[in-house]
Structures are given as structure tokens and as C-alpha cells.
């Protein structure tokens, strides 16, 4: 007894078998880098989602210690947010300079971006130092543990973003705007703007909602 598909095959058996995707495609270097990097960012997004979930669960467990209202200085956070937002648009200017093929312009704006990133990190470290100084370190309560983990992980990402920025500036001065460097500029652009997206979640959910609580 034959299955219908077998019959169909039998009917066309004298014709050569055809596969539709037989030819090898060209895979030039880096043609899938952008998508691959995007998928990396999505996996990074999952890391932050887990940390946000931890904070959401533990954020109210003060262990009779200080609450967000006692600790967070919103003016400082507003300044920090501004630094990151400025660094986003200056990175945008670097990308625009790259599209016009100006190496010096790209390097200049990357340097400005790195400075804003450093300002952000400096303010964040100042905040962390202050919190630990007054006894509100990560070991004080579950709220503070999850807070330091979430915000610290973001800060660590920014740190590595700055390391990458500096690396890229050296690569640009050595090789100029070759295809590989353009690709790197665009990948770091995604990384940098992605960090700003995560920061939107941090300042809204951790700081602003924390003070509202």
C-alpha cells in the first residue's frame, strides 16, 4: 500500500530530483555581524530582565533598613540620565560623520561620547560610594543587594562600552574607515544605545518608582 506522496513521487520519478537551495551563497566577512550582534543584545536584554525581576521581587524587603525614599537623590539621577542621553546623541554624530567618511570627526565624537560615559560612571560611583559610606551597602538588605546588582551590572556594561570606545578610536587611527571598522562603529552604536534603553528602565523602575513607593 502506497502513501499518496509516494504515488506523486512515482509519477515524477523520471524527472531529475530538484532541490531549491542547492547553490552555495556568498558569505562575505561580516555580512551577518549586525544581526548576530543584535541577537547578542537581545540575550543581554534577558540578563537585565532577570535582574529587574529580582529587584521587583526583593525591592520592598528593607530588613528594617533604609528605603529608596531615604537613599535616592533624584537630582543626581537626573544629572546622570542627562549624561547618558547626551552620550547617545554624540554617538549619533559619530555615526553621521562616518557616513560622510570623516575619520577625524568620528574620533572626535567618539571621544566626546567617552567623556559623557565617564561622567556617568563617575556620578554612579560617587552615589555607590556614598551609599556604602552611610551603611547602605549591598549587604544591608535584600533591596540594596538587588539594587547594587542591577545598577552595578548596567554600570559594568557602560565601563566595557568605554573600553570598547577607546579601542575603536585606536583601530580607527590605525586603519581608517575600512569596512571592518565601519561595522565595529555600528555594533558599538547598537551597544551604546541599548545601554541607554536599559537605563530608561533603571531610572523609571528603580529610582522614580522607588521614591514613589
Amino acid at each position, binding site marked *: 500500500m502506497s502513501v499518496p506522496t509516494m504515488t506523486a513521487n512515482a509519477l515524477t520519478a523520471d524527472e531529475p530530483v530538484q532541490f531549491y537551495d542547492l547553490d552555495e551563497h556568498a558569505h562575505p566577512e561580516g555580512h551577518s555581524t549586525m544581526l548576530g550582534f543584535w541577537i547578542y543584545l537581545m540575550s543581554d536584554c534577558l540578563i537585565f530582565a532577570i535582574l529587574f*525581576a529580582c529587584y521587583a521581587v526583593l525591592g520592598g524587603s528593607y530588613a528594617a533598613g533604609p528605603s529608596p525614599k531615604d537613599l535616592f537623590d533624584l537630582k543626581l539621577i537626573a544629572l546622570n540620565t542627562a549624561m547618558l542621553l547626551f552620550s547617545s546623541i554624540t554617538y549619533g554624530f559619530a555615526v553621521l560623520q562616518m557616513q560622510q567618511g570623516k575619520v577625524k570627526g568620528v574620533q572626535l565624537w567618539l571621544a566626546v561620547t567617552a567623556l559623557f560615559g565617564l561622567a556617568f560612571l563617575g556620578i554612579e560611583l560617587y552615589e555607590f560610594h556614598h551609599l556604602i559610606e552611610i551603611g547602605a551597602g549591598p549587604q544591608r538588605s535584600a533591596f540594596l543587594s538587588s539594587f547594587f546588582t542591577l545598577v552595578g551590572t548596567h554600570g559594568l556594561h557602560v565601563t566595557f562600552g568605554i573600553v570598547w570606545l577607546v579601542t575603536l578610536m585606536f583601530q580607527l587611527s590605525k586603519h581608517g574607515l575600512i569596512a571592518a571598522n565601519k561595522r565595529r562603529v555600528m555594533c558599538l552604536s547598537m551597544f551604546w544605545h541599548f545601554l541607554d534603553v536599559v537605563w530608561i528602565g533603571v531610572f523609571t523602575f528603580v529610582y522614580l518608582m522607588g521614591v514613589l513607593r
Partner: protein
Amino acid sequence: MSADPHAAHDHNEIEMPHASMRDYVVGFVLSVILTAIPFWLVMTMPLSAGATGAIIMGFAVVQIVVHMVFFLHMTPKAEGGWSLTSLVFTIIVVVIMLAGSLWVMHHLNTNMMPMPHEPTSQVTGQVP
């Protein structure tokens, strides 16, 4: 490297999103507005805490979309739609993870037996 120089040329032009000054400026201005209003709302508190919370969460979602569109150049067609597909998949996973964690842990908290040995553990939910 390739036998067909024309095809090689086509493929060497790696697909990159085209950015424009207009995109960055519009995105930046929108972001500033969408950041300033939540900070102002929380710092001056003209509304109730519940309404303020709902509004700033809404603003955050809008600002994330603004960043995606104007800074990350997200379009449905980018990378043949695969960027958007992976983004939608990530969002689904994130929503399940966040909602699920909060739901489960909330019930765990409310169903927890009170523990008289550690008075500090009860401070979480209730204000005396």
C-alpha cells in the same frame, strides 16, 4: 575572491541602517521631553502616587520605543525582518519572566507563615 565581481560588490556593501541628523535630533528632543516629565512629576508630586506611577511607566515604554526607532534604527524590514522577530521573541520572554516572577513571588509572600522568631522579616509588607 569571488568569480563574479558584480555580485561580490553587492555583498561587500554590508547592510547598515542609514542614519540621518533629523532622526537623531528628533529622537533626542523626544527623549529629553519623555525624561523630564517623569522626573518633574515625581519631584514635585502634583498627582497621586498611583497616577504618577502609571504615567511614568507609560512614558518609559514610549521612550524605549523612541530610542528603538530613532537611535537603533529599528524598522520591520531591518535584516530581512529578523531583527524585529528576535526583538518580539525577547519581549515575549521578558514579559513572561517578569509577570511570572512577580506573580509567583507575590503569592509566596502572602501565603508565607508569619515567623515570630525574626520580627524584621515582617517589616516588608506593612507599615506599623
